[in-house]
């Protein structure tokens, strides 16, 4: 599929707007926006397996968690600088995804869900049992990101330039993933999702394709985790819990599965929604999420993007 220049232009505009956000928002709001970017990247990585390839994973928290711990431990032990710490996280998470993927993608559609969920439990337990390394439930506290731009330094409370770093990394990852799903590989993945026997008949090695998607997705999830660890100043074993994977599922489904913008959009909406809720609604938030999921599952399987698209078509129909 050709790359749409208008879309690239729109991306540039959004990116530029996000880049001037530090001038418009207070540091707290900036820290929320930073989290939206990181978790949005996680949701995008998730959608590569879920939306594009049609595999429901409950184990993506493993790669996020490994990315986070890989980067954090590298930073705490060796103080090697940001790039190497990020690379350590991505390498650890990506390798684990490549290995686990070998077993997971062979276990069939339903088996895949169970195998991935159980890997989440396994890594959660392993992380819990190595408290002197991982900090257990209490977690690890890191110092602020060693990043300074023209006297403006990153902090744990006020992200400052750390936000810009994450914006650039998330933006580049977005473009890379975009190029990937537009490339023949993306097409092949969708083919596997729509009709696996036919894909096989067409000569695709579906198992290898699924494995590739899983490994790439794990690597991207690990990148998100590494960014999280380095900018948040605190991580804990809770990151490995399968419910963290389920969060990505929720955001992706809400925003629109099988797209890259959808997961990002879904993450943003849910974060801002959670910010706005207080008191009883704070406690009731998961119920709200559950009801929303039921509605989406029943009526809007294409999520928010699907609704927007539908509205757009209706409007265009009126104007004609």
């Amino acid at each position, binding site marked *: *599929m050709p790359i*749409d220049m*208008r*879309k690239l*232009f*729109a*991306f540039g*505009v*959004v990116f530029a*707007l996000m880049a001037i*956000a530090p001038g*418009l*928002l*207070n*540091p*707290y*709001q900036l*820290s*929320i*926006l930073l989290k939206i970017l990181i978790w949005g990247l996680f949701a995008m990585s998730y959608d590569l397996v879920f939306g594009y390839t049609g595999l429901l994973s409950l184990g993506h928290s493993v790669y996020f968690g490994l990315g986070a711990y890989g980067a954090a431990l590298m930073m705490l032990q060796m103080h090697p600088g940001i790039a190497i710490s990020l690379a350590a996280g991505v390498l650890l998470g990506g390798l684990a995804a490549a290995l686990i993927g070998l077993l997971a993608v062979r276990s069939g559609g339903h088996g895949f869900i169970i195998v991935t969920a159980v890997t989440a439990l396994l890594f959660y337990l392993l992380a*819990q049992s190595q*408290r002197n390394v991982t900090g*257990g*439930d*209490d*977690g690890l*506290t890191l*110092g*602020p990101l060693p990043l300074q731009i023209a006297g403006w330094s990153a*902090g*744990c*409370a*006020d992200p400052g330039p750390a936000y810009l770093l994450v914006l650039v990394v998330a933006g580049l990852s977005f473009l890379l993933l975009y190029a990937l799903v537009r490339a023949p590989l993306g097409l092949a993945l*969708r083919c596997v999702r729509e009709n696996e026997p036919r894909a096989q008949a067409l000569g695709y090695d579906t198992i290898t394709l699924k494995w590739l998607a899983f490994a790439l997705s794990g690597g991207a999830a690990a990148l998100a985790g590494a960014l999280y660890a380095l900018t*948040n*100043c*605190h991580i*804990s074993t*809770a990151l490995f819990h399968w419910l963290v994977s389920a969060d990505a599922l929720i955001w992706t489904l809400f925003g*629109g599965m*099988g*797209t*890259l*913008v*959808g997961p*990002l*959009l879904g993450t*943003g*909406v849910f974060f*801002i929604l959670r*910010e706005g809720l207080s008191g009883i609604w*704070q*406690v009731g938030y998961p119920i709200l999420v559950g009801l929303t999921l039921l509605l989406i599952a029943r009526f809007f399987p294409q999520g*928010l*993007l699907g609704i*927007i*698209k539908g509205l*757009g078509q209706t409007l265009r129909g009126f104007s004609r």
Partner: protein
Amino acid sequence: MLTCTRRDFFRTAGAGLLAFALGPRASAQPKEIVIGHQAPLTGAVAQFGPWHNRAIRAVIDRINAAGGISSLPLVLVTEDEASNPEIGQDKFRKLVLQEGADFVIGSVWSATNLATAPLARELKTVYFPQGIATEITGEAGNRYIFKSYHTVRGAVNAGARWTVENLGKRWTIVASQLEFAQSQAADWRAQLEALGAEIVDVITIPFRPADFLPYVSRVNVDRTEVLYQAFTALDTIRFLQAARDLGLHERLKILGLIEGIDVLDTNSPAFEGTYYITSYPRRASQVPEELQELDPVYRRSLDIDEEGRSPQGTVVPIADLFGSWQALSLIRKGIEQSGWQSKADNSAFIQALEGRNWSAGLEFPQGDGFLRPEDHLAFHGHYIEHVEKGQLNVLLRISRDASLYSPLIDYTQQEL
């Protein structure tokens, strides 16, 4: 395939972001003092948050009724930290950066305290953590952190001598994996070694295990005299139940800190005969004579009855609440003495509190105490209590000096 354009995304997301950006913003309000409460209203220690909040509100109301502090009224902003360090950090950022909190009283969840401490330093905001892990008054803390209530090490030192002499010399420590419990295991180990007692075994148990029996069955019953337990309230019940199921209660003495049971009703067989190191008697009848005038005032302002219960009949963590109560009393003393007007005066405020002494009174109903300048830690008296026929009775009162230990750090050397 990608039919939605980026422009659609921009339209929706842009509108949302704009609304988000125009929300309430931190602003300098010289006319009031904003107290932030990072409260565990949900999650593992949800029984504590509402009570601390209530204690804070009671003191604030009393101060405001008397015209505020230096004629500035106090305002309380509460955020739920959900017994979770990540959320706790977010809520601390929100309290300070968005709600403009001048002082923050922290959660009782030690992990949240430890994760929040660097933020307090970065935002130059005085923080009163309510968790008891010893580390918060060491390397993990900083000059903006004040502990208005004991840490584990203070309590351990207070009770060590008596327990070793009276309960036994061969100990097994059973502790949750959580920071505040690991603090207890480490501090007891040091104390027991210093007193010449023997540590038979240390058994670490994850937070909320599915089953306690596989762990409790590892206790060496033949060699152990004292079984020391360190858990959060919920796990304490289950541990004591499991110990009873295996018949350990008949063969050894079980000891813990009050923090493990201060929201629990001790009127059940599992608690019978167990010992606790506490910082205030749960039952009014056990309060020492010199504090008996203050005790009813304290209980009344929090609606706690003579047995330590709320009007609904739930057990109130009466000792634990002193931390928040005294934090506000200290804020008042600090402001009055330093002439604090805004956060710009924080360094004067901090110096005014370092080394502060107090005597028993309405502001400090727990009794005399002082705040050590080096590690900003409060020292106060302790008790040994024992469950007899389902009720906690005081066996011994321990003076404040028994809990003293050499500071782990000297914050007064740190820049402000």
